[in-house]
């Protein structure tokens, strides 16, 4: 028997393991709960350290079928020290958790999809599906191909071209919806009601969401089995920040890290900021918004986990910020120029919000802060359209180059031989 099962967050009723995300009794969300005593002897620092560097090293705290064999080395992305970014932001002990290089599709969504598909197989689905703002679409399409599922992907019609192409290339059926993500998501709830498909973020959502915990497990392990003082997390549906908190709590429960009150900071784009608005106004509930931001991967106006994200942030002593589209672009450039990490718009949101949080004194320079970068800049290059002018081409002659060099204002310093 599995050491985990679905449990209603509100009324506590258990549902075993099945493709289901809401409690029929009280209509509240279901979550995977674990028998921690059953894994206490296996989930230890020593045993984990001997396993391959991917998310499957944390298998005991993931809802995986018993006979599950991973087909991809997902996750265990770098936790980079970021001294130059820290200096630019006015802080000191700063780390970047770089899921811009998560495999196989360069976003943190690879973590959640790989867990969801393990259960899709166990439940006998031959088709997997999702509503997506792009990164999830890419990941479901790629991992469906790898694991032999058919894939149906539902996206808002105005998505970035790269994210659409990066879904189609894997042979997935892409359905463009003339509407916002929130409308796509609502439609998918209705479709999931009618079709026996494994929707990773509808009927498989409790399992899927558990995959996000691996970001938290990795941060703690990569800090030497210590928890940071602060984490800054981009928020779309609000699930990631909630699951990083769950991961830290589980590590404390099982004795892998010392207890610590980590402050959780949520980052949004001002053009779609239902969660940060609620936090700033002291509200416990979300007022839905109509998104208008270049950070399309975060453009969810009615975040499903918004209520829980607000709770995590406020109970931890953290805060939530939001930044303009112009700040998003500047912050993408700043991260690239200081640390060599090219992130998508969501990462620009996170870096921009971190800057504000430091400036406003909500993040102290002496504390250890981890900034979560969740996606890759190559997918949202349109955000930088017009940011760089191409110089005129020069002839392949040394004299031409010397002339070009002397005309260039910033002459590079001579390198000593």
């Amino acid at each position, binding site marked *: 028997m599995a050491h985990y099962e679905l449990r209603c967050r509100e009324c506590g009723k258990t549902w075993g393991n099945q493709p289901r995300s809401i409690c029929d009794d*009280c209509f509240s969300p279901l*979550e995977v709960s674990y028998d921690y005593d059953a894994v206490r002897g296996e989930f230890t620092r020593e045993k984990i350290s001997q396993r391959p560097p991917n998310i499957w090293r944390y298998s005991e705290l993931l809802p995986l079928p018993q006979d599950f064999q991973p087909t991809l080395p997902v996750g265990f992305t770098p936790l980079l020290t970021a001294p130059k970014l820290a200096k630019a932001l006015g802080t000191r002990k700063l780390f970047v958790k770089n899921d811009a290089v998560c495999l196989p599709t360069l976003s943190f969504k690879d973590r959640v999809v790989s867990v969801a598909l393990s259960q899709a197989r166990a439940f006998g689905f031959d088709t997997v599906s999702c509503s997506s703002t792009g990164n999830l679409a890419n990941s479901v399409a790629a991992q469906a191909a790898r694991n032999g599922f058919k894939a149906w992907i539902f996206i808002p019609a105005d998505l970035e071209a790269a994210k659409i192409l990066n879904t189609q290339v894997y042979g997935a059926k892409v359905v463009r919806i003339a509407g916002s993500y929130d409308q796509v998501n609502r439609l998918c709830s209705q479709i999931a*009601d009618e079709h026996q498909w494994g929707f990773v973020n509808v009927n498989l*959502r409790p399992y899927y969401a558990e995959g996000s915990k691996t970001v938290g497990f990795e941060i703690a392990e990569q800090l030497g089995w210590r928890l940071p003082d602060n984490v800054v997390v981009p928020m779309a549906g609000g699930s990631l920040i909630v699951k990083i908190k769950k991961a830290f709590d589980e590590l404390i429960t099982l004795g892998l890290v010392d207890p610590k009150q980590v402050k959780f900071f949520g980052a949004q784009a001002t053009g779609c900021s239902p969660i940060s608005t609620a936090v700033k106004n002291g509200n416990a509930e979300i007022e839905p918004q109509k998104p208008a931001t270049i950070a399309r991967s975060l453009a969810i106006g*009615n975040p*499903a986990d918004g209520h829980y994200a607000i709770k995590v942030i406020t109970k931890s002593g953290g805060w939530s910020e939001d930044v303009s589209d112009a700040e998003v672009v500047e912050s993408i450039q700043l991260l690239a120029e200081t640390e060599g990490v090219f992130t998508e718009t969501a990462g620009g949101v996170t870096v921009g919000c971190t800057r504000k949080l430091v400036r406003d004194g909500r993040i102290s320079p002496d504390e250890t802060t981890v900034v979560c970068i969740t996606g890759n800049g190559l997918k949202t290059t349109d955000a930088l359209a017009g940011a760089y002018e191409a110089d005129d081409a020069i002839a392949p002659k040394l004299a031409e180059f010397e002339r070009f060099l002397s005309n260039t204002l910033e002459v590079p310093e001579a390198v000593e031989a």
Partner: protein
Amino acid sequence: MSITVQIPTALRRHTSGVGKLNCSAANLGELFSVLDEKFPELKPHLRDEAGQVRRFLNVYVNEEDIRFLGGPSYAFQDGDEILLVPSIAGGTE
């Protein structure tokens, strides 16, 4: 005047399997009263003890979230299609 309300599968065991209903409710409050009368078992699943719409229940009118239309004060128009859709969250505290 007539509107249509769609009931999601998750709630149909409280409606004897009925998934669609026509009625002449003028607003959300009246719609809930109609549902209460027809399906008494459904009531606690739609509203909490204080009578508020449950946190994880979203109401849509012709594809639009009713909160953008004024919420409970929105006056239904003839032919409106009302959707009751559970919010799919996966949170923890």
